C-alpha cells in the first residue's frame, strides 16, 4: 500500500532495543509545560501525554533524530544521549 498508517510505517524500521533508555524525561517539568511540542513533533510518535499532565516516552522505537531535545522549552526536562553503540535504530534503505 502506498498510503500507510503510522503503525505500518513503524513496522518497517529495525530496532535493537537496549535494556536502559537513552532518553529520560523528567515528567514533573512537563506538568508546567503548556505546549509540550515533543508530542506532535516526534516522527515516531513516542511521546504519550498522561492524565497527570506529565509525558511518557517510549524509547524502544526512537530514530535518534534529536527533534524532541531541540523543541523542548523546559530546560533539563529531557536528558538526551545516543543509545549504546550498535543499539537503537538500524536503517537499511534510507
Amino acid at each position, binding site marked *: 500500500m*502506498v498510503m500507510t498508517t503510522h503503525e505500518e510505517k*513503524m513496522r518497517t524500521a529495525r530496532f535493537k532495543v537496549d535494556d536502559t533508555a537513552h532518553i529520560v524525561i523528567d515528567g514533573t517539568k512537563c506538568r508546567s509545560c503548556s505546549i509540550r511540542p515533543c508530542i*506532535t*513533533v516526534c516522527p515516531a*510518535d513516542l511521546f504519550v501525554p498522561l492524565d497527570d499532565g506529565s509525558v511518557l516516552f517510549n524509547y524502544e522505537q526512537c530514530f*535518534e533524530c534529536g527533534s524532541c531535545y531541540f523543541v523542548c522549552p523546559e530546560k533539563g526536562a529531557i536528558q538526551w*544521549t545516543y543509545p549504546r*553503540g550498535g543499539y537503537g535504530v538500524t536503517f537499511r*534503505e*534510507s
Partner: protein
Amino acid sequence: MTNGEVPHFDVIIVGAGPAGSAAALITARAGLKVLLIERGEYPGAKNVSGAVFYGSAILNDLIPNWWEQAPIERYVCRRELVMISPKTSVSLDFRSAAPGYVEPPFNGFTILRPKFDRWFAAQAEAAGAFLLTSTVVDDLLRDDSGRVIGVKVRRDQGEIRGDVVIACDGVNSWLARKAGLQRDLSTHALSLGVKEVIGLDEAVIRERFHLTGNEGMAVEYVGAVTENVHGGAFLYTNRESLSLGVLGQLSSLVEQKKRPYDLLETFKAHPAIAQLVRGGTLREYSAHLIPEAGWGMIPRLFSDGMLVAGDAAAFCLATGIYIEGINYAMQSGLAAGEAAIMACRRHDFSRRTLANYVGFLTQRHVLTDLHAFRHAPKFLNSERLQNLYPELAARSLEMLFRVDGRGKRKLVPLYWQTLRQTGVKPRHVLKDVYQIARAYLW
C-alpha cells in the same frame, strides 16, 4: 590495547558518514595511524538523506570511476522544481544530455545511504584506517590546558588518545557542543525530514518518469505540500524504488502543531504525487534532522586538537535551487584531513596550525558557496515564498488556461487580479524581488 595501556592514534575521526570516511581515507593514505569510530552497527546504519549525491567529480579524484564499484542507484539527468497548491501544480522541468549529465563522471547520483556509506567507509579501511563500529563516543579527553587529546567511548577502559580529533558526528553534534564550538541549535535553523522508500518495479519507474536505462530523476516541491508548515518535499528515483519525503522547519512544525508523518501522507495523496507512487509498496520509513540555516549556523571550526566537519559543522546548502549536503560533507572531511596531515607533519596540534582548515575549506569551495548563498535560507522560509507564491503561480495559470467563454484577458490584468485575490501587496512583491536578487543573482 594490552596491559591497560591507553591506545594512541594520530587522528581519531568520530562518525563514519561521508565527512568522516573522507577524512579517514585521505589521512590513512598519507600514512597516518587513523581510527574511524561509528556508533551504528555498520557505517550508514544511522544515516538518512534524500538522497542525491552531487559530489561525483570530487569522489572521482579520490577513487577513479568510483561509480563502477559503488552501490549507486541512478544518475540524475532530469530535475524538476514544482510549485504546488492543493489541487494544482506548476513545474519547471529540466532534462539534459549535455556533457557531464549523461556520461562520466556524471552530475549526480541517487543513492541509499546505508549502502553507500558502508561502501565508502570500506574504502577508508582499505586505505589503512581502523574502523571501530558499534561504539558511541560520549565525550572528549582534554589535558590541563584544555587541549583535546582524545575521546571517551562508552565501553570498559573507554579512553582512546589521538593527536587530532575530527568531529563528524552529524547534525546533533554533542562533541562540537561539548568542546564549546557550537551553541544549542535553534529550531529555526533545523528542519525535520521524514522519508519513505517505496518499492516499485524497475520497468514501471522507467515508463512513469520517462527514463531509459539507468537514467534518474530528482523532483523537489514547494507550496501547499507541507500545508502551512515552512518546508518542502522531494521525490527521487532509485533503481527499483522511489525515495520521497517531506521537510518541515522545526519551529514551524511546532507552531502549526503538525505531525510530520501526517504531512507525508498529505503529500502522497496530492494528485500530482499519487499518480507517481501508485502501486508501490512501503519498504522503509525514516526521519532525520537537517541543518538548514547555512552560513548563519556554522560553529567555530577548530580548537586545540580538534576540528569539526560535515553536518556537525552545518555544511549544508539548502537554497531551493541547490539542496546539497553530502558533497560538502565530503569536501569538508577532506579539508579537515588535509589540516590534520599538516599538523601531524609539524607535530603541532594547536589551533594555530589547525586554523589552516579554514583555508582548505575555502579552496574546496565549502565556505565560499555557503557564503555566496547566505541570504537564501531566510528567504526560503518566508511566509510568502512558502505559501503565497506557489498559490499565486497555480491560480494565475488556472485562470490563464481555463476556457470558459467569457473572453480572454492579457497577462498583467490577470496577475493583478490573482495578486488581489491572494492578498499580496505590490510593495511586498517588490521587496521579495529584491530579496531573491540578493539571495541568488549576484
